[in-house]
Structures are given as C-alpha cells and as structure tokens.
C-alpha cells in the first residue's frame, strides 16, 4: 500500500521517499536493538554451561547444547507439546469463529438486548482472572473437566477481547458491501462467510496470533485444571522444572524450546495480516 510515488523525484538525486525509507530503516533498527538484546541474553544463557555463576555479557568461552537437549528428555515432553498444541489451536479456531459471528451481529444487526450484551461482554474483561479462578474451577470440576483438555479449553473460549476487537473493525467497513449483498439476495450465513470473513482477515490473523500465544504461554489456568502429568501443557510442564535451585541456564533453555513454536506460528500468520489487505483492496 505504501508504494513510492512514481511521479515525484528526478534522476539527479535520490528521491525524498527513498531518503525517508532509509531514515525509517535506521530508526526501526535502533528500536529492534532494544527489543532483541534482552533475548540475546536468553540465548547466551541457554548455551552456557549449567554451572556458570552469573549472567554473561557476551558468549561464554565454551558453548554447550546440553541444556537444550536435556529439555527434550525430561518428563512427558511429547505429550506436553501435544496438549499445548491442542489447547492452543482448538481455542484459536473456536474463538475466531464464534467471536466473529457475534461481532458481526453486534456491529451490523439490531436485536433486543444488543447493547446490554455488548457491554456485558466488555465488562467481563474488567474482572480480574484471579477473582474468578475459584468459582470457574469449581464449575469445571462439577462438570468433570479436571485433568481433561476440554475442561481446560471450554472456559477460555469466552474471549471478550476477540468479540470487542472484531466488532470495532466490522463497524468501520463501508456499508456498500452489505447493501450489495442484501440486494443480491444473499442469505445471512452466506453474507457472513463470503463477505464479512474475507474483509476482516487482517484482524482475524492478528487475533489468531494473540489467542494462540495467550494459550501457549498461559500458566495459571492450565496449572489449576491439569493436575496430572498427562494433562499438562508445555508451559506448565517446564515450570515444574523451575525449582529454586535449578540453574538459570536450564530454565532459559526450556524457555527457548517453548519459544520456537510461537515464532513459527507468528511467522506464518503475520503474512496473513498483509495478505488480507490486498484481498480487501482489490474488492474496494
């Protein structure tokens, strides 16, 4: 969308746009240093010998992959990975589907109790999780959901942020799209699938990243529901290794391992954020 202006600039000197791009690159490079440098320390720690006493400023004299290899050999690593994956992906799919349906109705349809429902959903965000942990767990336990993945997933499907965010985006869509669909005589479900969903792809991709990450890195709730070794997620499983006396190198190695799937998912989905616009732009 930000294409360099073709009309401006002559052959003699670099166009202002190109200079601006250079400045932008430098500024972003400096910011990136701040975001990435602390993480470089993590990598350094993870490949440091386990008995290195303090956090090093640079790469240690001897590098080792022992800490990282160790992570894969402890506990039920493959099972934890599987659980994390199911917990995260099932939630992403269901949350995105139900939330965009609700958001569409809340933004575009008039029905009784709409305002009340919208505010009720937003208001749930303001209730701290720690305050409802006990009632929620009692409920899940009554339903027989302790130590099950469905017990872990179900309460997290109520995602107010998703509904709220998607609604804000649907409100901004030009009315012409919906008008055209109505005149075409498209059914409600068809309008939703064929018009609304493609238009909000950038938001859905953004949200998919977040919902995935929230679940992947979530500690408190999976810890409370998944009491047994078999029902643990990777984050919880790795936390069981984080004892008071275990070396920082080991903790960092474990962190790094659980980091990698996040990176992969992010890399895949962030393309969608950009891809969405081109799709929308062509139609517009």
């Amino acid at each position: 969308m930000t294409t360099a202006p073709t009309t401006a600039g002559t052959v003699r000197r670099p166009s202002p746009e190109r200079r601006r791009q250079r400045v932008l690159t430098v500024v972003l490079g400096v910011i990136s240093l701040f975001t990435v440098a602390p993480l470089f320390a993590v990598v350094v720690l993870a490949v440091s010998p386990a008995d290195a006493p303090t956090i090093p400023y640079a790469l240690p004299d001897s590098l080792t992959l022992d800490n990282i290899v160790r992570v894969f050999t402890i506990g039920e690593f493959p099972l934890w990975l599987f659980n994390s994956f199911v917990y995260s992906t099932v939630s992403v799919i269901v949350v995105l589907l139900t939330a965009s349906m609700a958001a569409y109705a809340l933004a575009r349809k008039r029905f009784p109790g709409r305002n009340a429902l919208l505010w009720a959903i937003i208001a749930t965000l303001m209730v701290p999780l720690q305050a409802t942990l006990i009632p929620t767990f009692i409920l899940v336990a009554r339903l027989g959901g302790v130590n099950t993945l469905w017990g872990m997933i179900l309460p997290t499907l109520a995602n107010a942020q998703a509904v709220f965010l998607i609604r804000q985006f649907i409100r901004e869509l030009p009315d012409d799209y919906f008008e055209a669909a109505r005149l075409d005589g498209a059914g409600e479900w068809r309008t939703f699938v064929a018009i609304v969903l493609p238009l909000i792809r950038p938001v859905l991709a953004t949200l998919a990243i977040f919902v995935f990450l929230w679940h992947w890195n979530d500690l408190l709730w999976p810890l409370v529901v998944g009491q047994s070794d078999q029902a643990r997620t990777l984050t919880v499983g790795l936390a069981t290794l984080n004892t008071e006396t275990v070396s920082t190198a080991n903790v960092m190695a474990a962190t790094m391992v659980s980091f990698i799937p996040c990176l992969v998912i992010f890399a895949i989905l962030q393309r969608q954020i950009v891809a969405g616009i081109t799709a929308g732009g062509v139609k517009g």
Partner: protein
Amino acid sequence: MNKLLPCVAAATAATLAALTGCGPGASTGGDSGRTTVTLWMYPVIKDGAVGKKFWTEAEADFEKSHPSVDLTIELQTFDKRDAQISAALAANSGPDIVLVTPDQAATYRNVRGLLPVDEAVKDQKDSFYPATLDAATFDGELYGVPLFQNINTTAYNTKIFKAAGLGLPKTWDDVRTAAPVLAKKGIAVMDYAGSPEQTLNLSFYPLLWQAGGRVFTEDGKDIAFDSDAGLAALQFLVDLKKLGGLPPDVATDGPKVEGAPIAAGKVGLRATTSLPELKQLRAALGKENVALGQPLKGAVQATYGNPGLLALTSINKKENRNAAYQVLSYLTSAEHQKALNAAAGNFPTRTDVGIPGDGPDFATMSEALKSANPGEPSPAARQVMGALAPNIQAALRGDLTPKEALTRAAREARGIVERSAPR
C-alpha cells in the same frame, strides 16, 4: 437465513464433539474396586529427571506391597502453588495427600482443608524426632507426617576473610567487627534475602531466634516479635546495612545463589545455606574457598530447619482413608526416608535413620540440627510475614527506625491474629 440455524447448530455441535473427544488426560479410575490415592509431590529432589524416576519407582514399590491401593504421585511446581492447592481444595477435586511446610499446614488446617493423621503413625510416633512432630501438631492433633528435614546453616567464603586477615565470624559481634573492614573493599559481610516474596524463616526469623525472641507468644494468641529481642535483631540488620555489611540490593534480593552477589564473591557469609546451595556456592567460588560452619550466635545459637510434611487433605474420601494412612506410613518409614534422603540430600525425621551421607558437611549439618527451629506454625504465620516483611524493608532503606518499623508491623499483625482466631 434459513441456512443460518443449521450452520450455527452444526458448528456448535462439532465444537462440543471435538472438545469432548480429545481428552487424553481424562483420568477415569475405578478399575476393579481398588482404592485410589493421589499425592502431590514437589521438586524436593532438585534434578527433575532424577526426581521423576524416584517417585515413579516409589509408586510402583508401594503398589507391589499394597495391591489393593492405586497410588498416583503427581509432581507439581512451586510456582503459583498456593493458587493450585486452594482451587483444588475449594472444588474438592485434587490430591488426597500433599507435601506442605508447617506454616502451610497451620493455614490450611485453619480453613478446614486438612484432616488429622495421628492414626497413620500411631505405633511409630516414638521413632520420630519430637521437634518435627511438634511442628505439625495443633490442638493436640497431628496434621502432617514429617517426611524429611532441611537444615540451613552458615557458609563462608573463606578466601574473603583470609585476604582481610579476619577469622570466620561466629557471633553477631564478630560479624559487626568484620563489616566495616570488608566494606572498604566493596564486599558485604553477610547475605540477606530481603524480598517480601521470601519466607522470613530464611531471613529475619533466624536472627530473631538468635536474639532469643519469638514471632508468636507461646500460646499463639498474640505476636511477640516487637520485643527487645526483636528490636535487637532488626537493629543488628540495620547497623550492618549502615556499615556497608549487606549487599546493595538487599531489600529486594531473593535467596537464589546463582547470579547473586554471594556467587560473584562479593559477600562473605550466608547465614542460612542449604545443602544444594552449598554445592552451587562451591561450583561458583571454587571448592577450597567455601567452608560450612555452625549457625550464628546472638544471645543464643539458632537457625531454621524445616520439616516437609505429608498432610491429608479434606478431599480424601472416607472409603480411601485407610489407604491414605498406608501411603503416609509407607513413605515416612525408615527404609523409604533413607532412599529419599540419599536422592535429595535432606535429613531424616526419624531417630532410626542415619544422616544421608558422610563427610564434614553432613557432620556439620547434623550438628546444626540441634539448634534448628522448625518455624513457628500459626494459622496467621504467613499473613504476619506479609505484615512484617515490608516494614523490615522500610527499616533497611532507612524510611523507618527499627522501633517504628516493628511497632507498625505489630499493629498490623495483631489485627491479623485477631481475625484468624477460629470462630
């Protein structure tokens, strides 16, 4: 729109089906009338892989000798442990037996989360060290079988003291004398974990006990730390801080050895060092530069040695009660304690079990056991810590005088004790 309804219904149904279908962790017990007992263990064995193997074997050995009981030992994490246990107790869905400290036992019992366990060890009570049983006894009933004891005593960086021409400090006076000498070299004489997240059992209380004081009165109905002894202990700490005898970040430091000033050779001694910490110190500073000594002496010699208790929760069903007693009895037996201590480096709670190893360290530590205080268990213990710790921090920062800090803490703590009195 006529299509909408079936679509919504199908989506909802598919979701629910997918969810209920994928439950690999679903633990549906109830096989062939065996009674089931679940136990939550924490990483008392520091190496995760070793710990996992140890408890799996313990589970199998127990089931071999008790075929009618299905025992499940689940390894849990220290992080957010309180939230996990309280949710389990509140929903009545979780462990039959859980490993707790005496503080926790007192707190959980007060909210009726624990059941007495006298029955489990009724013929063996004489075999346990009386102090370890006392730490778990409330109103004449035992609320946890002592599984092991930790002991913390003084570790020195001998290189520092040698270089300064000082002997190893053994009393408060020694420490006070050494502080300014070392401070000139930018070295703190003593470590102190002042972070309010840390239990005071490993920071302020040992000093309080060394001064001859107590946290609570004997009957547990009032607090007693605002005594002259309490003042002496806090004054000692504040004096050290002023003399440059404590590390700069003392108010927020945790007890971790790794990455801490003590591991960087910037602290002379640590008054409450556990066996695993000693190992880390040796790794960081060199074996020959670390020595272990007896607990520091103020008015008296004292330190903290905490027993780990296996407590029976209110989740345990009546029909599983006997099986739970069997588990408690088995795991705290002389034979099993010996195996556990060998793996974890802890000390036994029974007189018929030897110390877990030989060599000077073990000898020193078992000597230190004699002056060990198991903490002063009270249902308000942790709340009182919550009131005291910030005020100690304030005194260390010089915002309050020691006297003011203790008075303020005492006022807050008295309110807590009053509220936590059983109704």
